[in-house]
């Protein structure tokens, strides 16, 4: 046995006190700050669930066509979405989809700028890399506890947990993509007198786009993996169905809902991948 040097209670107590303190002092403020996010989530939820099912399928098909410019992908995607409805999972799917969309938008809004900064500042990268490792390996329940304490059970807590878990790939791949941009191409833009903004938006980001798209693809997949856990803190949707299947030992219910998650994953994956491939093709190396 390893000798006890510091009693565990002494280690835990200050942490508990610290978080408790934050909850007491700031939870009101934090809730006020995140109110717009909650509004967005609710708006998206209403939008997807109230819209006629064929309109949603049509929208997804149009997105698929825009991403791939081929007829096959929209057809396949529409078929999969129809299957969701046929399996009786439409409403749950739409709830999950709405959270997913917001989570991915947030992840991109947070992840891409951080990735850009990491690519430009070495010191930031050396700080961020271990942080990203922690975000990806720390069991999500660990940060679910304080998040739930701060925001209560519900959508906000779920979306924060999802973003924390899902944002690392887009950060990593943005950073990588920008650092992989051919130095001579970047130098050419400098030599012609482009300023930082023009270098970033005219050269670095467009050339990093295939990698960024791969990051977004990974991020969506990880966000989907999070939905079951998110359902434990009170978010309805496909994850909730799975959870109920577990609780009530209903294999069929769990399996079908799981299938629904897989279908959503495939739809997301194929659309983002098709988009990434199109950029990849455009940027094909010299």
């Amino acid at each position, binding site marked *: 046995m390893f000798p006890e040097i510091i009693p565990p209670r002494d280690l835990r107590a200050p942490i508990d006190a610290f978080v408790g303190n934050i909850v007491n002092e700031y939870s009101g403020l934090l809730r006020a700050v995140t109110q717009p996010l909650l509004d967005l989530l609710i708006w998206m939820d209403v939008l997807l669930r109230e819209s006629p099912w064929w309109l949603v399928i049509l929208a997804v098909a149009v997105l698929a066509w825009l991403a791939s410019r081929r007829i096959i992908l929209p057809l396949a995607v529409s078929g999969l979405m129809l299957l969701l409805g046929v399996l009786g999972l439409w409403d749950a799917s739409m709830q999950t989809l709405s959270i997913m969309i917001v989570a991915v938008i947030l992840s991109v809004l947070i992840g891409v700028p951080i990735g850009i900064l990491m690519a430009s500042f070495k010191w930031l990268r050396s700080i961020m890399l271990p942080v990203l490792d922690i975000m990806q390996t720390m069991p999500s329940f660990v940060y679910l506890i304080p998040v739930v304490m701060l925001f209560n059970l519900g959508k906000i807590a779920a979306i924060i947990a999802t973003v924390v878990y899902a944002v690392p790939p887009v950060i990593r791949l943005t950073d990588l993509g920008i650092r992989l941009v051919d130095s*001579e191409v970047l*130098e*050419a833009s400098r*030599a*012609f*007198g*482009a300023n930082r903004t023009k270098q970033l938006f005219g050269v670095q980001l*467009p050339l990093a786009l295939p990698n960024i798209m791969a990051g977004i693809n990974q991020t969506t997949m990880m966000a989907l993996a999070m939905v079951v856990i998110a359902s434990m803190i009170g978010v309805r949707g496909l994850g909730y169905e799975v959870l109920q299947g577990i609780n009530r030992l209903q294999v069929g219910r769990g399996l079908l809902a799981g299938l629904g998650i897989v279908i959503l994953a495939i739809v997301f994956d194929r659309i983002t991948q098709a988009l990434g491939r199109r950029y990849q093709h455009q940027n094909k190396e*010299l």
Partner: protein
Amino acid sequence: MAKIEVSNIYKIFGSRPQRWLDAARDGISREELLARSGHTLGLRDISLSIEEGSIYVIMGLSGSGKSTLIRHFNRLIEPTAGHIRVEDVDVMSLGMRELEQFRQRKMSMVFQRFGLFPHRSVLDNAAYGLKVQGVARKERQQRAQHWLEQVGLAGYEKQYPHQLSGGMQQRVGLARALATDAEILLMDEAFSALDPLIRREMQDQLLQLQSQLNKTIVFITHDLDEALRLGNRIAILKGGELVQEGTPEDILLAPADDYVQAFLQDVNRSRVLNAVHACNEPALSLTTRSRPVHAVERMAAHGLRFTPVLDGKRLFGVLTRESADRALMEGARDVSRYVEAMASVPASAGLDEVLGRMLHSTAPLAVTDENDEFVGVLSRRKVVELIRPTLPIEGEEPVVVVPQRSAA
């Protein structure tokens, strides 16, 4: 006045270059600096003056600092010490904004691996410099179009760089650089990545464009043939130091050290050097009105078997000893009737051409300049010496040159 003037440029790569600047000034060797401090000496005390309207070639092996040097002209790389002037602008004093302006207007650059934007069409690539300047879309496309036509790429505007061959890609690079109308063109090993035939074609095109545009061109290369072909002046770098600077002839005829000499080994000298380098000032020349007795006396005095005869400044022909004797015996008033025709080559004829003529006949050859005026008589020995300087020639100490190719 010089267009570009750099003086006493030092560049040390590493975390604390200023600390080792004095050591570099005191002449610490590259290896020692690296061993003692982990810093790399990029350039040591480089001063150059580049004339307006000339093609200035900077040459050296890889690692000699030539690409580092060219990036100092537009401060893509900051010198550790030294001054850079372009016309009357002190480039070192420019702030961030001014430097961007300066790069947009004054200088443009062509890169070894082209540096084209893969996500932009050929037309947009060529228009990039103008776009950065803020020129309206329509106008910049028009101007880019014009330059694409100039470099022979009309019809490829909508293509993307990866759809073009290497030579065509570099033409886009050239059009992009020319489109901004900058007076100074920096070309960093611009043709090194191309295969020899295309390279030659591009060199011709550059020379032809230069004859119309009269830009100031700084051209980096590791290929001496290319340097000699393009350069009005050549600077040779070795290990970050300037070894020799001068006209192509200066360098060919008087290499400063073994390093330069080693460079010269592979070069096709006969294409660069021409007849004028291989001719002797004649010890004696006569005119058409010289008296035969005078001719015979002078030729005997100099021990000559023949001598050129001039009419004014122009070559009239050659007088052999026998003809002179005959003129004397026949009591001619002057030598003009006894002069035989003499073959001549223009001063600008390459040595390879001269060599061909020499092999066809053993008769003496005269060299004449562009006004048909007599310059001298071709020396067979000099021709051979110039073409193969390492060949031991009878009666002379053999010149031994050890080819040295340091990987510095």
